[in-house]
Every structure is written in structure tokens, then in C-alpha cells.
């Protein structure tokens, strides 16, 4: 072993499992816009424990991606971020830019949605992985490239040595996402944030990428935040699940809690719109309407207008997260108790088609 060899084994195991590694509290993100401030994230709290996978679910615009970009401090400077992101005893939001640079990639790594655009088209994939290694390790280019080849091998890219000298456009989407995963693994991080890692990929490739992610997480021993709009992706992967709606967490609990005893109509609705192999005869139950605009939000529960359980109290006060089935299963709904034993089809109408839209379409078509 030369002095330049990079320690590959996850030897410096990062404390005991169960220990809190990342703690987000009271996170608020506001963007200025022509129509007034956009409150993209409104008071997000979560803790991430060593070795666990936290799934964050929500529709587009629910603030789930903005939350993680805020944790990485990669939002444009126009964004106003308040709250606290505790990592390793420090509040990341208070670090200087150069201190934060040392955290990014080495302690917290990130995987983005679109592998087609995530890699720089003018550099080889090997160089782009090696660059991540050299950002945090003082090693020669050759040693970093060796490490890159090892990483490519770990994410199961065949002929890793040859592939390292390929340019991104020469690889398929799935292969590119593996490269991005390899970049995330490069410095043996404590936390990996995967933002919709499978959304842009073919269904057939999605499972492979999820496997690669799992392998990466086990290899590095990192905790993972898995962001997606697809409950199916979460199902086999996450230990705990956080459901977000209109910039706020509306339900948090173990995967079992959320999947089997949801206490928020929105979570129930999401589950209802997911096809299930174990009960093939069931009808899907779509959630009517669309998410609210986060500009000038009216008071009351943001899900109220779409909620079949909606009552007067929902228009007046926005429900806070509170304990339901257990102290660790929280939901933000005035009527959480009314959902005991309910199935999606009991609450949502199975045949809510958008009649207005269909009528308009029929009219416009010559």
C-alpha cells in the first residue's frame, strides 16, 4: 500500500447505528417572485439516524427538493433560508462558504434527478469521479483515477477501466446515474441525499438503480434521504417516511405506520393512487384537484380544498403535526382519528375524472 492509496474500506465506521447524524429543524425557504414571496418550504423538521433510509414523498412543488438543496446550501442566493440544519454538532446554515465546501461531497453527498444533464459533457466520467476524490483528498491524478475505476466497479459498470475514459454521451441513462452514484460514494459520506434518482429513467432500469443505491448506502454506511414522488420507490427502501404537502411535512412515521395506518387523508390518497399487485381487483382512487400555489397561501389546511374529510375547522386553522398511533408517528390533520381503519376507496371517490377538462377537449377538437 503506497502512501497515496486511498482508504477504501469503510473502516472508520461512523459511530453507532441509531445515533442522530442530521437534524433539520424549523427550516423555511422563501423565494422572491413577481407575484410575491414564494414560501417553498414552511417549517420542515426531521432527524436522520445513522444507517437509516428516510423517504420524503410529495407531489412536484411540495418543497421536497428545495428542502435538500437548502441542506446542501445550493439554492440561488435570492432564496431566503432560515432555521437550523445540525450536522456533526454544527449548524450548516451558519458555516462559511469554504467550510461548507469541505462538507459537500465528503460528509453529505447528493444525487440528482436527471443523469442526462448531471454530468459535464466535455470531461470523461473517470475524470469527473476523480475530481470528486481530489476535491477532498490530496492524492495524485493517477491515484484518484484508480479510485474512480474501483468506484465504477462497485456500482457494477462492466469494464470499469475502459468505461472510465468514456464521455457521458457515450453512456446510457442508467449507466450515467451509476456514475453519479459513484461520485456520491467517492468520499465515503455520512449522508447521501438522492433527489428523485429514478424518475428520469426507464422503468426497467429503475430497479437496478435502486439496487445500486442500496449497495452504495451499505458500502459507505451512510444514512440516506430518498426523495421521490413515487411511493413504490419508497416502499422497498425506506425505514421511515415523511410525506410533504405545500412545503410542509404532513405525516411522519415508520414505513409501516405510513403505509398501513396513514393518519392524513393526503397520504391515504397517495396510497390509493398506487396500483397494488396484492389486490389487483381494486380501483385506483385519484386525488381530485391540484396542489395549491404557495404564493399568498390562504389560512387553513392547504389540503382542505381537495380533501373529502374537509370541515369548517380546516378553513380556519392549519393543523400542526401531532402524535397519532404512537409517539413517533405524527400527522397534521384535524380528523386524523376519523381515518382509523379507512381505505382510500372509502374516503376518495374512485371515479373523479376531470369532467370540465374532458368537455373542453371535446369542444376544441375539430
Amino acid at each position, binding site marked *: 500500500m503506497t502512501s497515496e492509496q486511498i482508504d477504501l474500506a469503510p473502516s472508520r465506521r461512523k459511530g453507532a447505528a441509531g445515533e442522530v447524524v442530521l437534524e433539520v429543524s424549523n427550516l423555511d425557504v422563501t*423565494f422572491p417572485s413577481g*407575484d410575491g414571496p414564494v414560501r417553498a418550504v414552511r417549517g420542515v423538521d426531521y432527524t436522520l439516524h445513522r444507517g437509516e433510509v428516510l423517504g420524503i414523498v410529495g407531489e412536484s412543488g411540495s418543497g421536497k427538493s428545495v428542502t435538500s438543496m437548502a441542506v446542501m446550501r445550493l439554492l440561488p442566493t435570492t432564496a431566503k433560508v432560515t432555521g437550523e440544519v445540525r450536522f456533526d454538532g454544527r449548524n450548516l446554515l451558519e458555516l462559511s462558504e469554504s467550510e461548507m465546501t469541505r462538507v459537500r461531497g465528503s460528509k453529505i453527498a447528493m444525487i440528482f434527478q436527471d443523469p442526462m444533464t448531471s454530468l459535464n459533457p466535455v470531461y470523461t466520467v473517470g475524470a469527473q469521479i476523480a475530481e470528486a476524490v481530489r476535491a477532498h483528498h490530496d492524492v495524485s491524478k493517477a491515484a484518484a483515477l484508480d479510485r474512480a475505476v474501483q468506484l465504477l466497479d462497485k456500482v457494477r459498470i462492466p469494464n470499469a477501466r475502459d468505461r472510465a475514459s468514456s464521455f457521458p454521451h457515450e453512456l446510457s441513462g442508467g449507466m450515467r446515474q451509476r456514475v453519479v452514484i459513484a461520485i456520491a460514494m467517492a468520499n465515503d459520506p455520512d449522508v447521501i441525499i438522492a433527489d428523485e434518482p429514478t424518475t428520469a429513467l426507464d422503468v426497467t432500469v429503475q430497479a437496478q438503480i435502486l439496487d445500486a443505491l442500496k449497495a452504495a448506502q451499505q458500502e459507505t454506511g451512510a444514512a440516506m434521504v430518498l426523495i421521490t414522488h413515487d411511493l413504490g420507490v419508497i416502499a422497498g427502501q425506506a425505514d421511515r417516511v415523511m410525506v410533504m404537502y405545500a412545503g410542509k411535512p404532513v405525516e411522519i412515521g415508520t414505513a409501516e405506520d405510513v403505509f398501513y395506518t396513514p393518519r392524513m387523508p393526503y397520504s391515504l390518497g397517495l396510497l390509493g393512487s398506487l396500483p397494488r399487485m396484492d389486490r389487483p381487483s381494486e380501483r385506483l382512487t385519484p386525488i381530485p384537484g391540484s396542489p395549491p*400555489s404557495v404564493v399568498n397561501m*390562504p389560512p387553513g389546511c392547504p389540503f*382542505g*380544498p381537495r380533501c373529502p374529510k*374537509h370541515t369548517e375547522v380546516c378553513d380556519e386553522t392549519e393543523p400542526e403535526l401531532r402524535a397519532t398511533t404512537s409517539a413517533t408517528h405524527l400527522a397534521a390533520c384535524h380528523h386524523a382519528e376519523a381515518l382509523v381503519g379507512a381505505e382510500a376507496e372509502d374516503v376518495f371517490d374512485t371515479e373523479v375524472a376531470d369532467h370540465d377538462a374532458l368537455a373542453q377537449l371535446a369542444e376544441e377538437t*375539430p
Partner: protein
Amino acid sequence: MPETLVKSPDREFTVEERSQAQLVFRRFLQHRAAVVSLCVFVVLILLAYVGGWLWKYDAGQYTPDNSVPPSWDHPFGTDSAGRDQFAQVLRGTRISLQVSVSVAILATLVGTLWGSVAGYFGGWVDTLMMRISDLVLTLPLIAVAAMLAHNFGGSWYLIALVIAALYWAYVSRVARGVVLSLREKEFVEAAKALGASDTRIILRHLVPNALGSILVNLTILVALAILLETSLSYLGFGVTPPDTSLGLLVSEAQTALTTRPWLFYFPGLFIIIIALTINFIGDGLRDAFDPQQTKVRQ
């Protein structure tokens, strides 16, 4: 259970829906430099066409005041023959605007037609037509324009014709690019799949979407044409007396820079104001039609 579903769309969407034209207009108003430029440009047009007519001196009129510096009587001074420079500049502005706007409209019409036909048909038609455009673009415009204008030019509309005969090639490239990219767009394919006719696709989908680029390009052409006309006049191949243009006024005044600087500065200033405001208006239009270009990713 659908009866219990309370629909209150006003609570769902607090941002009201706007039409494309309203959006474009609103975004244009947000571009302050463009709005100011538009006002200045309108004032300039009024000044040139109405002001010149109201002003006490005619452009060709010889007053008894020779070579006087700017004063209340002659805001831009007079030349050595006693002609009022303010009246001259207004007349030059009229001609320069006529030249550049004619060039912009002519070149846009020809170029858009040429480029869209090439882009729409594709294949060898496209190759042939674009090779011809490329050929025009390999020649320094001012050299060819000077050569043509020397023997055909002199009056403002001939100069406009000569310049337009070269600038259409630029427009054709832009128009072809727009048509090519629009042809690939999903909404055009969707309209086709729904059975919409070619006419409907062109009128409802292609034209409104290409309008932005065409308008922006039109403004760029106005600015380019006014500068090219100016350079041509300076080299002696542009508008010739008895016609006049801002370019001709400046080039006539270049030897007077030290003795009668007002003759040199005022027409030059007017050229800059026209080209500058037109460019800012174009910039505002671009932002208004294509907000994606300037939007910061969130």
C-alpha cells in the same frame, strides 16, 4: 361521497390566469430599460415627423446665421451655410428611420419566408436554400453594399433595397431555426395527432410561437441597418444630397469636429439614441417572449 367534496377553486389558485398576450405585456413592463426606451423612441418619432413640420426652420432653408453654436434660436446650432442643424437632424432622423424600418420589414418578410420554407420542407430544398443564405453571409456586407450602392444607390429607398437585399440571409437563418425547433415540439405533434389541419397548426401554433423571435429580430435589424447606412454614408456610398440622413450629416461634419463640434455630436447622438433604444426594446421583447432565458433556476 362526491357530494361532500367541497370545490372552491378560488382557494386553490390565488394567482389568476392570464392570456399569453397579457403575460408578454406584463413581463415587458417589468423590463425598465425597455419601457423607458420605448417612450424615448416614440418621442423621437413624434419629434422627427411632427416636430420637423412644426419647427420654424426648414431643413433646406438658409438662415442669415452662419456657423453659430447651439442657442435658443438654433438648439443644435447652424452649419457654415447657415442651415439650422436641428431641422437638418430631424430630417436626417426621418430618412434614417425610413431606411432602417424599410430594411427591417423587407428583410424580415423575405428572410422569414425563405427560412421557414427551407425549414418546413427540409431535405435537399433546405440544403440548397441555406447554402445560398450562407453564400451571402460569407461576404462583408458593407463591401457588397458599397459596390451595389455606388452604381444603383443615392436615394434613401435604393439604399434600403440594397441593405435589405443582404440582411435577409441573417433573418432566414433565424427563421429556419425557429421553424425547425417548433416542428419538433410536442404541442405541434399533439395538434397533428388530434387531426388539426396544416393551416390551423400554422396559425394557432407556429405563428404565435415564432412571433417573439421574429419581432426581436426585427428590432435588431432596425439597429443594424441604421448603423450600416451610417457607415455607407461615411464611405460616400450612402444617401447622397439632396436626400440626407444622420450618417451623411455626421460624415459631412467630421472635419468640423474641432471648429463646429455641434455639427458632429448631435446627429451622432441621435443615431446612438435610435440604435440604443431599439436594442433595449428588443431585449425587453426577448425577455417578455422567452422568460426562460433569464429565469434563475429554483
